[in-house]
């Protein structure tokens, strides 16, 4: 284990995670941990199984073998939970490789839907809401304030009432992150957030992710191909290749690891070491 900035605390513990689709082994006995208030990057060539790891953590797939523990009070065993419970109870949020906003709804509505469970409780299963009680109106005003705060952080206040599908690509990426953050997550899983961004947008994304780590104190799991993002902001890097973990450590260590260089560039004679 590499020394970390937050001491020995663990946020999520992935143990012996294996995922088979029929005869195909997408992930083969992968174990790693991520800490709170850290950005842990998962990198690897295409088809290495990065998104499959995410889908296991967020409940979209049920792992064939392995245990996924979200540490906290109490601990949650994610592999035993239903998809939506992972967001609702364990408070793991995620974004998607191909953006999945609610395109016909406005930017603000997207952020309010993310606060659904909190608002649902305040609306007393909609009954207080239907009656227009003050208790619900206060909760809704708070939710809108929170949404406005995030819109300020991603510079989209002026576009709040536009349908999300009309926004430019980079803004949609930022909005998806803000939407995930509106669920008050403890762990935020980002699947290639920098894909398709220009260098300026990419730098802005770095600032946003660092502020999510430092200001909001959220642990971030990051899948990314853009090495300028990975090497600048991550605290810890896990490298996958063909479903196996081939290296792990601080960005500097991983960058110079011969097996990582081999996985990305291939060896000179094409033979395995």
């Amino acid at each position: 284990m590499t020394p970390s900035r937050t001491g020995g605390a663990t946020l999520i513990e992935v143990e012996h995670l294996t995922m088979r689709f029929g005869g195909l082994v997408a992930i083969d006995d992968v174990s790693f941990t991520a800490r709170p208030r850290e950005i842990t990057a998962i990198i690897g060539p295409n088809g290495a199984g990065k998104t499959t790891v995410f889908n296991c953590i967020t409940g979209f797939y049920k792992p064939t073998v392995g245990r996924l523990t979200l540490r906290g009070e109490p601990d949650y065993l994610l592999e035993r939970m239903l998809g939506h419970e992972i967001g609702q109870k364990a408070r793991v949020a995620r974004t998607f490789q191909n953006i999945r906003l609610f395109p016909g709804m406005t930017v603000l509505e997207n952020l309010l839907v993310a606060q659904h469970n909190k608002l649902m409780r305040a609306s007393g299963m909609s009954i207080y809401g239907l009656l227009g009680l003050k208790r619900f109106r206060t909760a809704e005003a708070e939710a809108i304030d929170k949404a406005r705060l995030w819109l300020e952080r991603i510079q989209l206040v002026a576009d709040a009432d536009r349908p999300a599908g009309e926004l430019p690509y980079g803004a949609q990426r930022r909005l998806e992150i803000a939407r995930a953050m509106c669920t008050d997550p403890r762990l935020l899983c980002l699947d290639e957030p920098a894909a398709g961004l220009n260098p300026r947008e990419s730098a802005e994304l770095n600032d946003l992710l660092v502020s999510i780590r430092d200001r909001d104190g959220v642990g971030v799991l990051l899948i990314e191909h853009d090495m300028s993002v990975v090497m600048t902001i991550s605290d810890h890097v896990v490298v996958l290749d063909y479903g196996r973990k081939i290296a792990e450590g601080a960005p500097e260590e991983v960058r110079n690891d011969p097996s990582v260089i081999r996985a990305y560039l291939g060896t000179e004679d094409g033979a395995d070491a």
Partner: protein
Amino acid sequence: MDARLPPMLKDAALTALIAAALGIFIAGFRTYDVGKGLTFDFQLVDLAIAVVTIFFGRLGLQLASIGLKWPAFVLGTILGAIGAAPVRLPSTFLHWFIVLAGILIILRTIWPWANAAMAHARHSPRGVIYSQHFAKWFGAALLVAAVLMPFAPFADQKTMDLAVLILTYVMLGWGLNIVVGLAGLLDLGYVAFYAVGAYSYALLSTQYGLGFWSVLPLAGMMAATFGLVLGFPVLRLRGDYLAIVTMGFGEIIRLVLLNWVDLSNGPAGIGGIPGPTLFGAVFAETAPAGRQTFAEMMGVPFSSNQRLIYLYYIILLLALVTNLFTQRIRRLPVGRAWEALREDETACKALGINPTNTKLTAFAVGAMFAGFAGSFFAAKQRFISPESFTFIESAIILAIVVMGGMGSQIGVVLAAVLLIGLPEWFRDLGAYRMVVFGLAMVLIMVFRPRGLIAHREPSVRLHPVRAGP
């Protein structure tokens, strides 16, 4: 002469030829029953007029499509004038046909211009405000008109009957709009819940003597329960699969009603269902023992219209409740979650929204309003049988929602008036009225593929709309 003209003439001639070839069998002959068998007459004059109209109609559309506005406009006006002229054509339908051709050409001519102007208006801040005001005032005006309608001079029995029918469909449309328009669940078996509501009232009133107003909430709850029970196993399906299964459930309910004779009296149906009362007063010429009639209570002479007007106000009230409920719930978390589920179910799951529960609430709430409408239907008809709850009813209600514009409240009203009202008003056209019905549907789908009113008003705004500088 314009070089573009000959190909257009050729095209129009070809179209007319096809129309002639098809029409000779459809409209070219007329069969008569002469006692010993059938004989037929030629109707070649009718056919010739129709074919010539089609020739000029096609020509006009072509002119409009290449941007020759004025010739197209003139041609359309001439056709309209010929159709409306007091010359004697062999049938009234031909008059309509020619007028319609003229209107189509004119519409086609002004369409691109009107469309561009509307698109421009929609995107300017002033346009947004106008459209909001317009929607508000239009809705208010419709409401006032609806409340005053029974006292209008044209409100005879036939008109009132039709108005009650249209309002029933408006209410069903608004109810289904929750399921299809907001939650995006394609439900082809909506009529099942309508049937549950109708049979709830029919059975509870004839067997246990309960009144309309006490059964109404029970019927709603009963239908909602059926919605939950039917919804639970099927709501994990999506799109087309869900549509097919709900259609199956709709048929199952009808078949159960048809065959479970002990409960529902089977195909013979249930008769003698009491009508709704007003503070205990009945709407009939003579009251049963211990009751009084509405006429006695108010001290006015009895008229059969009183009952109809009362029914009209009940369904108007029920429809308004449905509308207000939908408007309100759309702004609540559950309503937003419905819309979010329609947009992207996977994203909802990732945000911790329970998709099954959320869909079930939409299904149950939609079913509840169908239950209300069903018990109204039973009270109005006083006789129900499984025949009233066939698949075609579900299809019509769904058509109202889709053509009105998914999720649009005013759109449902327009579509209900169009789909239910038009076939009734055009009864004079005889067998051709279904052609007009089909034509109206095709036109809406061509010109407004997302429904009559496709605009979606956000459920909440961060910046209230203000007039631009």
